[in-house]
């Protein structure tokens, strides 16, 4: 406590500084934040809107307010400091600080409002609409959080606090100008394990496996609804606006009363809704009318606007239809959005199901299309280079590749068995020393000499498995324990920075030259495996191709790679995402009625 008091004293002496863009950590919360009070002068405020009491690891009762942003609101930082000046407060223990807090809260605290973006189908464009709205509101100076109560996706990302949430919510939070997406923004994540079973993650941590029946029968009515309620409440206390994303169609009448991803969540949040319809496949008007009319009358009123999305060609041609639709539904069509070419990570495994290749660059990178492939957004940064990705399921398809990547999987041993059945194990091993081979997470585990899963923790079959033998490593699943961590460090060979995150069970005993050095709480750690002569690369780090350092290092081993790479400037994947968010939000600004959006947000009927 003394340390904090000292810091706050220094802060008061220094006075108001606004946004400190010179700070190496800036912005640590959100773009445009006030940095005057890096340490909050009100700590512990003990106001339940901003934090909660927890028991620390040492057993002490402490006030936890990690996600509170109140003091960093520009208007609050400024007001508090000017009040301190007016009242002549210089001592952090001055009892009048409590009344300044009260005054600030009264003046500036107001519970946030929510809006929900529904889609008439999956792939309607909900995710990009949410991202665009987040950015539009952020640009107007609001504090905004994206939210999706329930997301089914195998593409997850690890937050700074070590929670697993869907990849797309991390992109949307970037659009909202937030530095650290957290578990409240996607409190329920379903990771499909087969056609009918999913692993359910609650607030970023594994909650258990459920089949469809139990999920809707047992999980949703109890812990499901409670989780959604709690997290919406949490976000409303901290943000001006919550931009919620629905899931699939809100008019699936066979599960309507148990749906906590769409109208169910909108009701909890008291959110008005916007319905997005993709016009590309045709039938958009029918989808819009049917979606609204299939809802019970008391819910229909929530829909305050319709967006027709993904229009190719002349937008004006659809206007007469849109006017007619407004008349039929008595809901304004608030946006006619053209098809926008954006490069954002693929959300859906559906989009990838039938995919055979992507991109048409000169370096052919073959990716083993494992049946339980996970985190395939790892590959997205490759499209920024001169590559063509080929998704491979047969040994002969490896011919002519410049490099091979074995991606992550939801189940390493089962997919290793699949590789062997297909003959892909031998085919990949046959390429050793000829072209670079990279294994990520589960793919890296497969590259071990031996994989031991005596209790069947990872796979459906227990035992000891011969790996691809590309590295002299041993991977073990001794206990049911999952490692989930965000990592920052450097590529050892070049000293350049890398970032990534780990999500896996099992550990590897590594007997190879490491690839990376990762900064850890208890000192630096070596990570990965590297054999330069044989061009073998392995790592547990997802997202490792995002920073140019490792992506380019790996691709430089592709024949002619160095020459191809030197022809263009390396791009940071983060910058590319940022550029795409800008493109997206300006297209929405131009083609959507933002006045209408603001009115809906303000709760106008």
């Amino acid at each position, binding site marked *: 406590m003394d340390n904090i008091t000292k810091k706050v004293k220094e802060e008061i002496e220094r006075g108001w500084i606004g946004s400190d863009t010179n700070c190496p950590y800036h912005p640590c919360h959100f773009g445009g934040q006030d940095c005057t009070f890096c340490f909050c002068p009100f700590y512990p405020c003990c106001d339940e809107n901003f934090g909660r009491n927890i028991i620390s690891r040492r057993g002490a009762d402490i006030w936890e307010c990690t996600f509170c942003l109140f003091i960093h609101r520009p208007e609050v930082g400024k007001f508090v400091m000017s009040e301190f000046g007016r009242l002549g407060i210089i001592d952090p223990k001055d009892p009048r600080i409590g009344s300044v807090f009260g005054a600030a809260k009264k003046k500036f605290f107001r519970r946030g409002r929510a809006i929900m973006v529904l889609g008439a*189908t999956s792939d309607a464009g909900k995710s990009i609409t949410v991202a665009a709205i987040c950015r539009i509101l952020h640009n107007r100076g609001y504090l905004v959080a994206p939210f999706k109560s329930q997301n089914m996706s195998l593409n997850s990302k690890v937050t700074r606090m070590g929670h697993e949430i869907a990849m797309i919510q991390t992109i949307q939070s970037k659009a909202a100008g937030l530095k650290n997406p957290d578990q409240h923004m996607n409190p329920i994540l379903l990771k499909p394990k087969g056609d009918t079973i999913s692993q359910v993650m609650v607030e970023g941590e594994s909650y258990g496996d459920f089949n469809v029946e139990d999920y809707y029968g047992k999980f949703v009515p109890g812990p499901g609804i409670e989780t959604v309620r709690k997290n919406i409440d949490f976000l409303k206390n901290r943000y001006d606006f919550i931009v919620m994303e629905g899931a699939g169609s809100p008019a699936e009448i066979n599960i309507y009363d148990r749906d906590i991803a769409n109208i169910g969540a909108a009701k909890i949040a008291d959110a008005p809704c916007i319905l997005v319809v993709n016009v590309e496949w045709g039938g958009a008007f*029918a*989808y819009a009318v*049917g979606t609204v009319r299939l809802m019970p009358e008391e819910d229909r009123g929530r829909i305050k606007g319709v967006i027709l999305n993904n229009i190719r060609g002349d937008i004006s041609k659809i206007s007469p*239809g849109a006017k007619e639709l407004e008349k039929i539904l008595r809901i304004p069509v608030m946006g006619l959005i053209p098809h926008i070419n954006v490069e954002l990570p693929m959300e859906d495994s559906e989009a990838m199901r039938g995919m055979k290749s992507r991109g048409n660059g000169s370096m052919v990178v073959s990716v083993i299309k494992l049946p339980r492939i996970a985190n395939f957004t790892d590959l997205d940064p490759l499209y920024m280079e001169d590559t063509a990705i080929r998704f491979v399921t047969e040994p002969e398809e490896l011919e002519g590749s410049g490099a091979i990547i074995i991606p992550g999987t939801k189940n390493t041993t089962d997919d290793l068995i699949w590789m062997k059945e297909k003959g892909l194990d031998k085919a990949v091993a046959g390429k050793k020393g000829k072209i670079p081979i990279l294994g990520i997470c589960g793919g890296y585990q497969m590259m071990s000499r031996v994989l031991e899963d005596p209790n069947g923790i990872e796979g459906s079959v227990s035992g000891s498995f011969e790996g691809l033998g590309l590295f002299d490593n041993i991977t073990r699943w001794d206990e049911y324990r999952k490692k989930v961590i965000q990592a920052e460090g450097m590529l050892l060979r070049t000293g350049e920075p890398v970032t990534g995150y780990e999500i896996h069970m099992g550990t590897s005993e590594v007997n190879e030259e490491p690839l990376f050095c990762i900064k850890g709480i208890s000192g630096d750690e070596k990570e990965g495996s590297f054999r330069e002569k044989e061009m073998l690369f392995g790592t547990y780090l997802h997202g490792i191709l995002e920073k140019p350092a490792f992506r380019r290092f790996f691709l430089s081993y592709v024949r002619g790679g160095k020459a191809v790479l030197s022809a263009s400037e390396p791009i940071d994947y983060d910058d590319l995402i940022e550029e795409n968010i800008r493109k997206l939000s300006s297209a929405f600004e131009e083609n959507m009625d933002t006045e209408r959006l603001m009115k809906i947000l303000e709760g106008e009927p």
Partner: protein
Amino acid sequence: MKIIFLGTSSGAGKTTITALYCRYISRKGIRTAPFKASNLSLNSFVTKDGHEIGMGQAFQALASGTEPSGDMNPILLKPSGNGVMQIIVNGEARDSIGGCTHTDISVMMKEAYTAFDRLSEEYEAVICEGSGSPAELNLMDRDIANIGLMRERKVPAILVGDIERGGAFAALYGTWLLMPEDVRPLLKGFIINRFRGDPSILAGATDKITELTGMKFIGTVPYMELKFPEEDTMSDTGGRLEGPTPADAFLNNLDSLMETAERVGFGIEIIDEILSS
């Protein structure tokens, strides 16, 4: 006898389901022809009578066990770039739209429906396929292949909804709602296509659609990837001496889709009733 399969969107599965039904009914000994009044396609098939028709109708003719003919697809629209469309009516290039010329819709309608009439005389059953969605508010007055045909020739219809993307019930109900009142009664049934899993979980929802619209629920068609044969190998053996020809493989695929559908309770007899009503 006549019937039309309409889709709630493009890619809903009209072409396959039309082929499926052509196959089924022609095997009962009924002389069957497929028909699609107008088709927007780059891939065309040249018939023995020298007409260009859409590939879909050529497949469906194969499934019907009959020779593809120009009447099966009297109007073919071929995009020729820059938003310009070439219109082929009864095998002859007539006009192009997108620029400044505009072929009279009523003339095209007349040609199309006369072709339909010729097929109706020649065959016992004409199994029609719609085009895109019939509920495009901005195109309804110019719709030849869906509403136009139904209205002019009183063709009963079955709606095909694609459940893979979600929103199938909304699409079915919305399409029904948006139909002009004079043709709405012709919508007799609906099909849920590309379904995975146990159809019994849909029961409440399909009943609701029937209750709201009066359309009968015919059943679900399971998700299946159908391989259509290449154009040049479709009508004969493709020069292969052994093994199944691509055409055979296509028909086998249709048969196994049919078997799978019937196993999960697809009520094809309901279509028969609608067809002969």
